[in-house]
């Protein structure tokens, strides 16, 4: 199902990612007071087994914030960062000096989940307006572990329908006094909601 998407359809999904990412970057700027650049998204279809490589390999240690997307077109959102970036984000959000956050406790976890919430809300809102599809984010969940382990839940969901994943990926880049932020933000539509999205933006013939 996924492996026969056309170039035009992939471009349309990239455009959707772009609209969402633009809105998410604005939201981040408003809460952090710092400009965060988001790259033009990539939309790619890759074999499930190769997805961990996109995060640097299955054993790389990362912090992942995961949300399920419900509504007319279901899917997953995963926001992944290295530990240092996540700690710096917590410093920024809580108005602490850079380098202050050193452990991932309950407060830090909820700060990161909140950031996941805010950017996903902004991202999905833009998508909803553009497509007229309602996207409803679940509450976020967080894990600090190996990239492969973090991806499992999402990949298992996709694995029931095929051997490929469609990733709409945006990279985050920002920094200021004493810290920098890098992160990857993924929208991973469920295969059976792809048709709904493509139809809504008029690139799929019915």
């Amino acid at each position, binding site marked *: 199902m996924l492996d026969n998407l056309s170039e035009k359809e992939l471009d349309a999904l990239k455009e959707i990612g772009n609209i969402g990412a633009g809105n998410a970057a604005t939201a981040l700027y408003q809460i952090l007071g710092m400009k965060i650049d988001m790259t033009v998204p990539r939309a790619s279809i890759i074999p499930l087994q190769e997805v961990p490589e996109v995060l640097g390999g299955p*054993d790389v240690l990362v912090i992942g914030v995961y949300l399920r997307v419900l509504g007319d077109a279901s899917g997953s959102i995963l926001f992944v960062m290295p530990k240092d970036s996540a700690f710096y984000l917590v410093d920024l959000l809580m108005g602490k000096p850079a380098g202050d956050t050193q452990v991932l406790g309950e407060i830090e976890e909820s700060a990161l989940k909140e950031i996941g919430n805010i950017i996903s809300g902004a991202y999905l809102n833009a998508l909803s307006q553009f497509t007229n599809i309602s996207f409803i984010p679940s509450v976020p969940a967080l894990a600090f572990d190996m990239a492969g382990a973090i991806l499992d839940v999402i990949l298992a969901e996709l694995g029931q329908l095929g051997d490929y994943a469609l990733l709409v990926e945006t990279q985050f880049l920002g920094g200021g006094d004493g810290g920098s932020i890098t992160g990857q933000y993924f929208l991973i539509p469920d295969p059976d909601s792809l048709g709904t999205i493509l139809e809504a933006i008029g690139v799929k013939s019915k």
Partner: protein
Amino acid sequence: MSGNLIKVGMADLNAAKSPASLITYGLGSCVGVTLYDERVKVGGLAHIMLPDSKAAKEVGNPAKFADTAIPILIEKMEKLGASKGRMVAKIAGGAQMFSFSKQDPKKSIGQRNAEAVREKLKEEGIPIVVDETGGNFGRTIILHTDTGILEIKTIGHGVKEL
């Protein structure tokens, strides 16, 4: 514990003879099934993603599912001289990495994977001697075919040799 290290990816499987070791990285809800025949020092490892191929809309790669991967793994080991009657199993993984609500009545995919693996091994008549499943953390596992020892590495939950 020398010999080369053979990597087994997600939804993949492989078998090897001593002194090689088999490794798979970052098991979350996936279950790593290792089988070992001590007499001939042949081991096998499968990185299983889903419980049941019959529930899938599209089967695709059979190494993805507990019910289809385990028979293929056994066969691969038999080609290297192992015998099913002598095999023992050690399994790890099947964690729940994210929990949205504590009272979710539905079984997690990790739990369902572990249950399906246990059931299939029982059906094949292979005893499980180590069962390190569950929890909420990832695991990297290495099966050393010279000793049959399973090494389990985690982030913040220690290293075990079983």
